[in-house]
C-alpha cells in the first residue's frame, strides 16, 4: 500500500470515528428528556431498544425503523423543536403541497450551517467574494430560497430573487396546460433577464437545470449569452443533472470548460431533509461523471441494496440512496430517497462514501414528477 493510500485509509478511519462520535452525541441530544423534541421522545416509547444506551456507533442507527417522510405532514410543527432549542426563532420549510398537506421541516440554523460549509467548496475565482447573486429557483416556503440568499450574504453579496411557485407548475403539468407551463417558464426567465441586465453586477447564479437551460437559450435568442451577462459561477441542483446534460451545458451553452468560457458550474444534490451534498469537480476527462458527497458527519448518503436497505452495495454497484441527517435540530435515521445511483469510493477531499449517477428510483420513476421547475 502506497503512502497516499495509507493516508487515505487513515482519513477514512478518522472520518468514521468522527461519524460514530457525532451519531452518539446526536442521538443523546434527541432522545434525552431535557433536550429532545416531542416527536422523538414520543417515538422512543415505540422502539424495542433504548437509543440512549443502545446506540454506540453509526451502524447502530440500523436499529431504528426507516424514517417515513409522511411523519412530516401536518402539525403541530412545534413537535419537531428540540427542548434544547426552545425559544429560538424557528423557520418552517415545506416540500410538496401541490395538493393536500405539504411535508414540513422545522429549521433554526441548519440551512445557514449547511450553506456555509458548502461555501468553502466554491472556488473564489468563479464565485468572487462580495459579488451579487441571482436565485433562479423556487420562492415561497422553500429552504432553497433562504439558503441561497444566506450563502450569498455569507460571501458578502446581495441576492436577487424571482417569483416562482412550483406548486402552480405541478398543477399546470397535471392539468396538461402545456402552453401555460411554457408561458410561466418564460415569465420566470423574463424576471431573471431583467435582473441580469439591470446593472446589478450579478456574477453568481443558483439555477435549477431546466431554468438554466431556458435562461441560456433565451439569452441566445436575444443575441447575448450567459458570459456576456457577467455570470462566472453557477450552483445548480436536481436529480436530472446527468453527465450528458452537464456536457451540453459546458460545451454548448457556456462555450467550453471554465478555463475557456470563464463559467464554472457545480452540481449539487440535496433536499429539505438532508441539506446539500457537494460534487467532485466535473470534467470532460471523466466523461462529466457527477459524484456527490454528503456533508458528513452532519448528514450521510449511502447506496444500499434494493432488497435490504441496511446492506451497502459494493463500490461501483447500483442501489437506492439512503439519507441520514444528524444535526442538533433534526434527526433522520435513514430515509429512503426516491433516487438510485452507484456507490462511489471515498477520496482525499471527502474520505467517505459518495453516490454517482443519481436518477429516479426505477420502481417509482413512472409515478414521480421530477424536475418540474
Amino acid at each position, binding site marked *: 500500500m502506497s503512502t497516499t493510500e495509507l493516508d487515505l485509509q487513515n482519513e477514512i478511519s478518522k472520518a468514521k470515528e468522527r461519524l460514530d462520535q457525532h451519531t452518539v452525541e446526536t442521538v443523546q441530544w434527541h432522545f434525552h428528556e431535557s433536550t429532545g423534541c416531542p416527536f422523538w421522545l414520543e417515538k422512543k416509547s415505540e422502539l424495542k431498544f433504548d437509543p440512549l444506551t443502545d446506540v454506540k456507533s453509526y451502524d447502530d442507527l440500523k436499529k431504528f425503523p426507516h424514517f417515513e417522510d409522511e411523519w412530516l405532514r401536518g402539525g403541530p410543527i412545534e413537535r419537531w423543536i428540540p427542548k434544547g432549542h426552545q425559544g429560538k426563532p424557528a423557520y418552517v420549510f415545506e416540500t410538496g403541497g401541490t395538493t393536500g398537506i405539504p411535508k414540513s421541516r422545522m429549521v433554526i440554523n441548519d440551512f445557514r450551517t449547511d450553506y456555509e460549509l458548502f461555501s468553502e467548496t466554491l472556488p473564489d475565482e468563479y464565485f468572487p467574494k462580495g459579488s451579487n447573486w441571482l436565485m433562479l429557483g423556487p420562492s415561497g416556503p422553500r429552504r432553497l430560497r433562504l439558503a441561497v440568499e444566506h450563502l450569498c450574504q455569507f460571501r458578502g453579496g446581495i441576492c436577487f430573487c424571482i417569483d416562482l411557485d412550483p406548486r402552480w407548475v405541478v398543477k399546470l403539468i397535471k392539468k*396538461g396546460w*402545456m402552453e401555460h407551463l*411554457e408561458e410561466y417558464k418564460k415569465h420566470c426567465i423574463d424576471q431573471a433577464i431583467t435582473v441580469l441586465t439591470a446593472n446589478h453586477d450579478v456574477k453568481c447564479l443558483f439555477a435549477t437545470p431546466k431554468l438554466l*437551460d431556458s435562461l*441560456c*437559450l433565451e439569452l*441566445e435568442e436575444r443575441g447575448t449569452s450567459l458570459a456576456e451577462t457577467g455570470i462566472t459561477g453557477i450552483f445548480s441542483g436536481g436529480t436530472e443533472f*446527468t*453527465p*450528458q*446534460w452537464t*456536457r*451540453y451545458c459546458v460545451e*454548448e*451553452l457556456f462555450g467550453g470548460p471554465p478555463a475557456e468560457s470563464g463559467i464554472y458550474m457545480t452540481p449539487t444534490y440535496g433536499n429539505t431533509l438532508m441539506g446539500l451534498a457537494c460534487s467532485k469537480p466535473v470534467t470532460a476527462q471523466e*466523461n*462529466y461523471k457527477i459524484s456527490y458527497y454528503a456533508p458528513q458527519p452532519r448528514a450521510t448518503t449511502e447506496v444500499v441494496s434494493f432488497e435490504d436497505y441496511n446492506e451497502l452495495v459494493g463500490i461501483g454497484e447500483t442501489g437506492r440512496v439512503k439519507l441520514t441527517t444528524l444535526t442538533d435540530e433534526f434527526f433522520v435515521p435513514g430515509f429512503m430517497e426516491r433516487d438510485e445511483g452507484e456507490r462511489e469510493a471515498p477520496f482525499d477531499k471527502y474520505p467517505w462514501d459518495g453516490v454517482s449517477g443519481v436518477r429516479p428510483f426505477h420502481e417509482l420513476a413512472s409515478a414521480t414528477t421530477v424536475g418540474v421547475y
Partner: protein
Amino acid sequence: MLNVPVLRWGKPYESLEVEEVLHFATGEPVCKISKANGGIIQRDLRKAHTAREKLREIPPEELLKMVAQAADYYENDTLDIGDGQQSPDVFVHQQSATTGLPELMCRKNMAKNSFVLRNMDRILDCLTRGLDLNILSRGFGSESRNVVVSYQAQTSILGAVLPSNSPGVHTLWLPAIPLQMGLVLKPGSQEIWTPYRMAAAFIKAGIPAEAISLYPGGHDCGSAIMSSAGRSMIFGSMKTIDQFKGNPNVQVHGPGFSKIVLGDDVVDDWEQYLDVMVESIFVNGGRGCINCSGIWASRHTKEIAEALAERLGPVEVKSPDDPGAELAAFSIKQQGIGTWKMLEQDLKAPGVTDMTSKYGERLVEKEHCAYLRPVIAHCESPECEIASKEFMFPFASVVQCPQDQLIKKMGYTLVCTALTKNQDLIRKLSDATHIDRFNIGPIPTSKLDWLQPHEGNIIDFLFRSRAYQVSEEVAMV
C-alpha cells in the same frame, strides 16, 4: 454491439446518455442508441433555415431523382448505420427484433416505403394538383393558364415525433425532402431503424446531410421538436389528438377507428365481402389506424361476426422469423396484459358477445413480451362501449345499427369503406365531415391509394397559398 449516434444536421453526435434497445422476445440488447436532450434540439433548430437553403440549391426534379435512387439504396444496399453496416436482411431482422413485428411485415413495410419513394413524382403531382414543383421552391410562379400563383413555405423543416413500434407510418414524412424541407425526426424508442436507414439512403443518394437530423431521446426531445419546428407531425393516442386540436402547426395522427359499413341493399350478400373484412381487420398485424375496427350493418351482424371469428379466431402466435407469422408482439409485456384486461371487461358488458372465445385463450404471455390473438366482438347496438374502441392488434366489433342511424352513431372514422350501391347513403357518407378517407365498394380500409392525401394534404400543411402580384415593370426586370 451496434452503436447508433444522434444525427445533428447530418453530423453524428455520441451522447453520454446511451440506451440499450432490447430484443422483444429475449430481452437481449440489439443496439445502443445515443439520447439527445431537449436543449440540443432547440439550439440546433435555430439553424433549421440552412436545411431548406441547402435543399433549395438542388432543383426539385433532381431531388425527385435522388429520392428514387434512395429507394434502391434503402431496399437493396448495405448502408452505414452508426458504427456498423446494415444489409437489408439485417435491417429486417433488427426491426423485427425490437418492435415485435414479424419479419415478413417488416419486409412489406420496406417495400411500401420504397414504392412511395420511387413514385414520389406522381404522388406530388397528384397532391399539388399538377403544380410545377419549382413554384413551391421559388415561392411563386406562373401557372399554365398564365396566372401568377404563390405558395409560401410555412416552415424550413418538417418535424416528426414517431411512434415507438409502428414501422408503417414513415411514408407520411417522406415527401418533405423533395419539397425542399429539412427533416427533424425523433425516432420511436423501439423503431429507430427506418429513420436511420432512410437517412443513410438519402445521404448516399446525394441529398445534403445538413438537411437531416435524428434525435432519439425522451419526452423532452418530442416537446422540443414540437415547439421549435414550424410544422410537425406527432403520432399518439386520443389524448395527444386532443392536446394539439386546433394547432395549425401540428398534424396529429392517432387512432383511426376505421370502419366498413354494409348498406341494407347488399347486407344479405355479406358473405361476398368477407375477404375484404378479414383483410381490413387483419393485415399488418391489425396495428394501423387504417385497420378496420368496426363492421356496421343493420342485420346479419351475428352471422358476420361468427364468420370473421371462424377465420381469425384460430390464428396462432408464431415465431417472428416464420414466414407464416401474422401477429405482432406487444414488446412491452405489461401493455399487452393491460390491453387484454381492459378488453375482458368490455367483452362482459351487456349486449356484447365475445365471438372468438371458443377458439382458445387470446392473451399469450411470453417471458419478455405478450401477444393478443384476434378478437371479434358482436355488439347489439352502437351504445356498447366496445363499439367505439380500437386496439393495437387484430380487433373488430361487429355492430348492429339501423342504416338511418349509421352516420350519426359511427363517430370519427379515418377510413370508411361503404359496401352499398344506395346513392342516397353514398351521398350522405360522402358529406359526413367525421369521415376522412372514403372508399366506395369492396376496397379494404387498409388499401391506400398513394396518389390521394392522407389525414390532410401535406402540401396544404407545409405551404400556404396566397396572393402574389408582380407589376409588369418589375416582371420585365
